Structures are given as C-alpha cells and as structure tokens.
C-alpha cells in the first residue's frame, strides 16, 4: 500500500504488486458474494441478504487509504467493506451462517457485521442510521486529540432521510474528521434516483453544508483510491469532513426477494460491461501487469480462501440458547 502515491492530477502511479492487490481484493468480494447467493438458495444463509456485486471498487479503493486506527461505518450491504477492511473471510462467512464463530458471534448475520479489532462499527439495517454514529465516533476522536478518520458509507437512498442532513451539518459545523462516501448505485430498492431526489447530483448536496465534495466514477478503483487519498489527507490536516459520491450500479437484485420489475435487463447488462472487475482486469492486461497464469493463480487462491471460509462456517457451532440474554447488558462484577 505504502508504495502507491497520488500525482497532482489525482492519478495513481501503480506498481504491479499494489495493482494485483486491488484486483485480488475486488475478486475476493465478488466471489464471496456469489457464493453467498448460492448459499442463500441452499438455505444456509437466511434473513435479508444484500450483495455488493458491481460495487467492489468503492470499498476496495477507499480502504487502501485508511489506517488501522481509523473507523468504518457501513450499511446492510457491507460484506465488501468488511472484507476490504481486513476481516477474515472465515469469520465473515460464519456470521452469514449465524454461527458463534462469526464476527458478531452469529447474532447479526449479513446485515450486522461488527468488528472491534478493525473498528468496523456495523452493518446497520436502518437506512441513514449509521451516519450519526460516524459523527459521534469522529467527535470522540477530535475531543481526544486523535488524528483518526471515520469513514461512513451509505447509499444514495439515504440522502432523502433527515438523518443524512443532520449528520452532514453536525460534521461540518464541528469540522469533524468524517469521510462521507455515498455509494450511488442509482436505485434504492426499486426506486430510481430521479424518483427520490429533485437534485440528482448527490454531491451537490454537500454544498449546503460547505463540505468539499466530488463525484467520481465508482467503477474505477484507481480513481477512487486516488481521490480518497486526497480526501483523507485533507481530513487528517484538520480541514473537516469530505464527501465522495461514487457512481456505481448493483448488478444483482436489491435482496434475494426482488423481482427487479423496476429496471430493464438491458440497463443492467450495459452497466455490467462497465463493471469494476472487468474493467480493471482489462486494463491490467493491456498494461501487461497481468497475464493469464497470474490471473488464474489469483482466482484459485481466492477460491481456496472461499472454500476454507465455507468449511469454517459449516463446521461452526450454534451459540447455546442459554446465552440468549448475554450481552443485553454488560455483565458487571458482583
């Protein structure tokens, strides 16, 4: 990671190692999500399952720029963030199964991935519900004089919620170290952006709070990493919150119950051709950073990791029913 750097124009001069790292990270998410879909039809995973397929470049690009002591707040569509943040695929998959070896002890499932070690504060199933938390985490850092960044991911649907607005204002007013990342995949469930916002250029909303904002191609992992690096630097320099709008697309249904009546197959296919993995891989091949053998090697390593994760989840155990009430409150020494 340390050997990437931004030029004035915001482009990255990539070395091959880092480039392949980005590819692998995106691939890990893609394959994880695909497997989750299968496991869902096998009823290994239940509840609501929201997949990140098509949006991998965002989590991967952003996470390159965060330090271990930074924080991440995400949504119910957060497997990608969890993997890119460094959560073990094994414990993540165990969480999908609801096994107690899962990263949230199996209690959260797909929508509620938490990890104290990597400072991932969820996994939040209330649209917009994570934004105020991010503000508070950043406030704590600022009050304690720590130069940490809190990154906060949310969909463009959340922008219509009051919580979005209140959070942006608080962060801006108090100049808090929050990186707001809007994953604008053009739909909130079945509601297209034009039917949810009178102003569809989401990044313009940040101007209401004097928060510096840019809109960028959410399918371009390099652009995302480069721009995030600048934004994070500005935050660490004490310039207050920064806002990134990443235009992307979800290739699959909103959740596993969605018949996708609200969009054309053709639209989906067109976006798939712009997909972050396809595109990056193509570019890597063109620039001769990737050859077929290397590609295969990465694929098979990811496959191995995934197989191990599934095996881990399969062999995981159920939390004993007697522990149902544990952690509702902290157990205090008597």
């Amino acid at each position, binding site marked *: 990671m340390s050997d990437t750097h931004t030029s004035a124009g915001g482009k990255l001069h990539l070395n091959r190692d880092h480039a392949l790292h980005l590819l692998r990270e995106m691939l890990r998410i893609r394959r994880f999500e695909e497997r989750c879909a299968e496991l869902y039809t096998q009823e290994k995973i239940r509840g609501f399952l929201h997949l990140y397929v098509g949006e991998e470049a965002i989590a991967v690009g952003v996470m390159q720029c965060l330090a271990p002591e930074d924080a991440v707040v995400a949504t119910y569509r957060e497997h990608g963030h969890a993997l890119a943040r460094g959560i073990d695929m094994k414990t993540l998959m165990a969480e999908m199964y*609801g096994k107690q070896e899962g990263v949230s002890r199996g209690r959260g*499932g797909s929508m509620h991935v938490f990890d104290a070690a990597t400072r991932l504060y969820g996994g939040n199933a209330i649209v917009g519900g994570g934004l105020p938390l991010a503000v508070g985490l950043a406030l704590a850092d600022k009050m304690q004089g720590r130069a940490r960044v809190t990154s906060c991911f949310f969909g463009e649907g959340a922008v219509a*919620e*009051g919580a979005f607005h209140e959070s942006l204002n608080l962060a801006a007013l108090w100049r808090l170290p929050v990186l707001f990342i809007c994953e604008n995949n053009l739909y909130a469930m*079945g509601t297209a952006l034009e*039917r949810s916002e009178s102003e569809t250029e989401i990044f313009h909303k940040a101007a209401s709070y004097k928060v510096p904002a840019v809109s960028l191609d959410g399918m371009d992992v390099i652009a995302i990493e480069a721009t995030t690096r600048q934004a994070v630097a500005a935050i660490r320099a004490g310039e207050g919150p920064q806002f990134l709008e990443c235009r992307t697309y979800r290739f699959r249904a909103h959740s596993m119950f969605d018949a996708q009546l609200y969009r054309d197959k053709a639209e989906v296919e067109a976006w798939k051709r712009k997909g972050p993995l396809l595109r990056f891989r193509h570019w890597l091949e063109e620039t001769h950073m990737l050859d077929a053998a290397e590609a295969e090697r990465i694929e098979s390593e990811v496959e191995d990791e995934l197989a191990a994760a599934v095996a881990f989840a399969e062999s995981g155990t159920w939390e004993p029913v007697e522990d149902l009430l544990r952690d*509702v409150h902290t157990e205090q020494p008597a």
Partner: protein
Amino acid sequence: MSAEMIQTSYREALREGIRDALKRDARVFLMGEDVGRYGGCYAVSKGLYDEFGPERIRDTPLSECGFTGAGIGAAMGGMRPIVEIMTVNFSLLALDQIVNNAATLRHMSGGQFNIPLVIRMACGAGKQLAAQHSHSLEGWYAHIPGIKVLAPATLEDARGMLWTALEDPDPVVIFEHVMLYNRTGQLAADAGPVPIEGAAVRLEGTDLSLVTYGGCLFKTLEAAGQLAAEDISAEVIDLRCLRPLDDATLMTSVAKTHRAVIISEEWRSGSLAAEVSARIMEQAFWDLDAPVGRLCTAEVPIPYPKHLEDAALPQVSAIVDAAKAVLNR
C-alpha cells in the same frame, strides 16, 4: 345464504382491500417506499401501480417522517391517504408526526380538523431479520389517545378492516405481521367491510382464556388444539383492535373460564399484554381462580440465527405450558 368462497392469501386479501378502496373512492391513494414500481417490500401492492398509476400508487423517497406527515396533511386537505410505512422498525422515524400531529390535531384544535388517515405497516419477527428488523411495538401505538390501532390476523380482517378504517374520520394504524402474509385459506368472494371495534372469540372454551392477536393468533389456536387433546378447553380471543381494547369480550370470557393467559410477541415489560392483565385485574379480579399469565418475547434484541430467534419468541409448546401452568397442570 352462503357466498361463493375463493382461495386466497393474507397478502392478496390486503391487496384486494386496497384495490377496492382505490376503486370506490377517488380520494384514496397509497403512498410509501417502493409501493409502486417495486410492488411493495412484502409484495402487498404488487400490480396496483400498473392498474392505478404513479399518482395513486405513489412511491416516496426514504423519508418516513416527511411522507407520514405529508399523509396527515393530505388527509386534512381532503384526501384519504393510505400511508405504508414499510415496517414498524422504520416507523420510529415517523413517530413524532404520528404522536404530535396525527393523534393530537383534532383535540388540540378544538375539533376543527379531522385526520382521516390510515397507516399500514408490517411488524414482527420470525424471518431471521435480526435486531433492527423484528420489532413488535404495537403496544406503543396502543398507548396513544387519538388513534385507533388494528391487528388483522384472519383473511376476513385483512380484507375488510381497511374499508372500515378508511371510513373512520380519525387516524387508524394497521399492523400486518410479516409471518401472516403467506397464509392462505378460503374467503367469501364478496367479503366486505368488517367492524374495527371489538375482539373476536376465535374458539370457544371453558377452562381458560387465551388472549392474543396478530402473529400469535395461529400459534395460539394450534396450542388450543393440543390442549384440547389433553381435555383442556381453551377459549381463544383475538383482540383484533388494540386501541380501544374491547373489555366486555375479555371480561365475559374470564367470567366464564376464571383463568387467562395473554400471548403476544412484544417484549414483556411494558407490553400491551400487561395492559390486558391489568384490566382483568381491575375488572374481573373476583372471577379469577389463578393469576393471569403472560407469554411474551424474551427481552432481548432479536438475534439472527433461527434457533435463537425461535427461543426468543412465543412458541406453541410454550403456550401449552403457560396454559397448563395457570391450570396447575
């Protein structure tokens, strides 16, 4: 004269109720997140968008406070809105509008304004949706003067309560338990409005009263069946209307059975089940042969795994046990 019967589902019965209302009264419209093009989060409104168009099947942005308040305003402006809040979990964001506007405006204005508004929402657990998507907060709503609160459990009620609710000049909140949507059964083809006051005795019995509503009704009926096999005759009361509560039906039952258990999917402390117990205490104490029991959900954010969710919620076997407990059996 028995009408022709059709096979239908709770979901379809709700949909027919909405369709009916839209056809009958031009002032009626449905508004909420993804009620239109998506067809409704739980597919209740599927097909209505094509039939009635975007004005009357109105998709809203994610803004529960805003569009619920807009429903209140539209009701005052002469419309008959049906606001769908996708689930009760998100209704917390709209609670200010419901409590401070919908429920108060009529009284506070000295009776000048009516709010003929219906708010529908899915509620309950059972689908492994975990802590933020499994709430049963109908007891909170039943605490608010100025609104009526309904919990249709049967096909008849799913089909017919909306009609009556829309004719009510005041705000009505309707809870649809997520585990009921797929239930199927026979319904009269010409099923019409049903009253929105009064509980229903779903099964007559003599040994004890099992009082419940919504998502727990069928579990309770199943438990009553098992009890019957052990020669225990349970009366099953479906509250149907959670505000106002129908004291008369409750007390008549308790006067007959002398024992009662309340079954609800709420967290126990501060539940509507407590209210029912307290009313029996106040109005039928001398009829009681044993303390009234409650069977509720464990007081815990509902966990994702099935075995833990099951352990948290009232189950048939637990209902049977609770019934036996008040009978000392």
